[in-house]
């Protein structure tokens, strides 16, 4: 493909540059082999993982990192399942000790049914974690003011939700996202709510720097095919954003010359 005229800016997160703007989660796959196949097909260079107790009874259990080499992939531990700032901070400290760096996805849930973030607790945790040298990527409501606060605290990205986690509802509030993108000096990554490829493309067309998803790929009938679809959608959406779409108009403008018509 010929290079687009409008040069792409590099996708930098926490001091590293990435080519892929698709970040994918590793939950809900049939097994680690399928996880790895989906990650490879998606082209993602950053993958999220959860932090959980080691299985004491099953000594032979395989480890996710045996399938996703931390030298090849940026491992992004998340604090999914944490309902307080304290739990999230403790989880991040443990995750860093595993030894995959200090980039973390901060997620403090405020409500079990909607899995919407607890905004106050997320801000509180972010403040502590940034002070401790973590590179914090917070999952947060699509609220422009909250995103500004998180940016001021020193988060390396803001990750507004498109819709509830795992809902597949797509981008519920593109106008808020547009405001967040306009105000942000750090990368804006849509996290959660993507259902299919067009949702990912829409996020990128709005000017998001990246998209993070898990269920949309892992829950598809064919996760490997959907991983590829998402890779293409993120690339297409980004390219369309860089190319600059036409203005929306109410009336038609003819595509063919109005002169030289047969008469």
């Amino acid at each position, binding site marked *: 493909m010929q290079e687009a005229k409008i040069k792409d800016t590099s996708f930098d997160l926490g001091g590293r540059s990435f080519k892929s703007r698709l970040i994918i*989660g*590793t*939950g*809900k*796959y049939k097994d*680690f082999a399928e*996880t790895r196949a989906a990650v490879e097909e998606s082209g993602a260079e950053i993958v*999220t*993982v*959860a*932090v*959980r*107790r*080691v299985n*004491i009874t099953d*000594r*032979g259990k395989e*480890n*996710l*990192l045996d399938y996703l080499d931390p030298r090849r992939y940026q*491992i992004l*531990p*998340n604090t*999914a399942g944490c309902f307080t700032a304290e739990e999230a901070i*403790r989880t991040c*400290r*443990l*995750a*860093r*000790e*595993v*030894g*995959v760096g200090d980039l973390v996805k901060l997620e403090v849930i405020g409500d079990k049914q909607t899995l919407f973030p607890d905004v106050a607790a997320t801000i509180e945790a972010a403040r502590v974690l940034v002070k401790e040298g973590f590179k914090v990527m917070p999952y947060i409501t699509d609220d422009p003011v909250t995103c500004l606060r998180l940016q001021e605290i020193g988060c390396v990205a803001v990750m507004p939700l498109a819709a509830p*986690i795992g809902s597949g509802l797509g981008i519920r509030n593109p106008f808020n996202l547009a405001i967040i993108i306009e105000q942000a000096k750090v990368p804006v990554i849509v996290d*959660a709510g993507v259902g299919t490829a067009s949702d990912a493309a829409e996020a990128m067309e709005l000017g998001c720097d990246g998209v*993070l*998803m*898990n*269920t949309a790929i892992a829950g598809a009938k064919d996760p490997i095919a959907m991983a590829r679809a998402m890779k293409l959608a993120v690339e297409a959406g980004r390219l369309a954003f860089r190319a600059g779409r036409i203005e929306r108009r109410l009336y038609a403008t003819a595509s063919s010359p109005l002169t030289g018509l047969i008469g």
Partner: protein
Amino acid sequence: MPDAFSMPDSIATSTMPTIILNGDPYPIDGDLQLSALLERLNARRGRVAVEINREIVPKASYSATIIKPGDNVEIINFVGGG
């Protein structure tokens, strides 16, 4: 002399030293090197992180760290998640 039938379970098993490992009682033979426990659990140091009594143990201290009966030990690793 206590009657065996009236003895609560917690006293009956107290002869075996235990720690709390990932939330559950886990018997140990006495003081135990953290690195030995990890080996016993087949947990590789590059894949886990450890907390003892809520304090993180740096990897460099695994051999020098001794787990004592009654300690609360958490060993975590990464699993699939979004």
